[in-house]
């Protein structure tokens, strides 16, 4: 298989997903979701194995580590906003991370999930680059984690407006924190569309909730 086939297919599929969303204007048509479905459909239709596709595509994944490092750049730019609203930001994100771990633990108990599935779901609300690492360290199934992270992001992105109206969350700062803490980078895409403060706070939440989850996961993962 050609080395650049997987890389080209992945990027082309994402660009097509963005074009499709713009063309049809449906919020449900998340470009990432479209791209993943398109890649799978293409490979199935052309009888190309995932291993052949991944021969080249894996090199894009290797860039996730330096990309995570670069999350420091938006974080640095927003340090002023963070300092000004430190208490609201800190309590909002911390309670969100706790709510995530608690709700996943309780539902994992109710559904009688095995340890491996429980820890795969634990990092579902944080950005993939950090979430994959958390899942791996805790002994989860990384693919399952990535799918739950992407589903979480897309769901958060789509549902945010209706849910904020329903729960009467009105301030831009709270909306941004909620989107970033619950639905990481994909939720942040929606927050950026809502406004500057929403986008800034959501970007900040990606890094902070990611780091808090890294700290909390080893403790919480041992519970089940």
């Amino acid at each position, binding site marked *: 298989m050609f080395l650049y086939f997987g890389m080209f297919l*992945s990027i082309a599929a994402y660009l097509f997903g963005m074009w499709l969303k713009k063309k049809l204007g449906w919020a449900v048509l998340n470009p990432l979701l479209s*791209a*993943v479905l398109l*890649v799978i459909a293409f*490979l199935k239709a052309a009888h190309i194995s995932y291993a052949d596709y*991944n021969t080249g*595509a*894996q090199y*894009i994944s290797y*860039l996730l*580590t*330096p990309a*995570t*490092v*670069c*999350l*420091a*750049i938006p974080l*640095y730019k927003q340090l002023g906003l963070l300092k000004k*609203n430190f208490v609201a930001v800190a309590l*909002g*994100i911390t309670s*969100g991370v*706790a*709510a995530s771990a608690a*709700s*996943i633990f309780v539902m*994992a108990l109710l*559904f009688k999930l095995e340890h491996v*599935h429980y820890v795969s*779901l634990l990092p*579902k*609300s944080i950005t*993939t*680059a*950090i979430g994959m*690492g*958390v899942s791996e360290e*805790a002994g989860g*199934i990384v*693919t*399952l984690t*990535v799918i739950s992270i*992407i*589903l*979480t992001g897309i769901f*958060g992105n789509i549902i*945010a407006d209706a849910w*904020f109206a329903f*729960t009467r*969350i*009105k301030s831009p700062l*709270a909306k941004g*924190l*909620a989107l970033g*803490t*619950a639905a990481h980078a994909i939720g942040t895409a929606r927050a950026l569309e809502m406004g500057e403060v929403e986008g800034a706070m959501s970007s900040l939440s990606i890094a902070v909730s*990611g*780091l808090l989850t*890294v700290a909390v996961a080893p403790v919480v993962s041992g519970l089940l």
Partner: protein
Amino acid sequence: MKYMKEIAIIFGVTLAGEILHALLPLPVPAGVYGLFLLLALLCSGRLRLPDVEHVGGLLLDLMPVMFIPAAAGLMESAAELRAVLVPFLTITFVSTLFVMTVTGRVAEAVLKGKKEEGR
């Protein structure tokens, strides 16, 4: 040259993150060590934003595409997912709404308290 220097800095910090990950017995991914390191370098003034923000912007722009290979890997583990499909989807959706509500309401309560204090 501008890009080469930026790539050298970012890859250098990433490498330092990988070394820390190998040396320290903490469950922290290499990228997170690197994130902290880059933030510290920016805050201390040893690096300025123009030293990293062009290549950094490129990497952040490409970030969604970096998730596609792992997500497309689902086609290999479809059977694995099918076994846990209902709890998996329920937990994902319910927990997302719960986190959104708790974070938003808590932040809003703090902001409201701050405003009333100021009166």
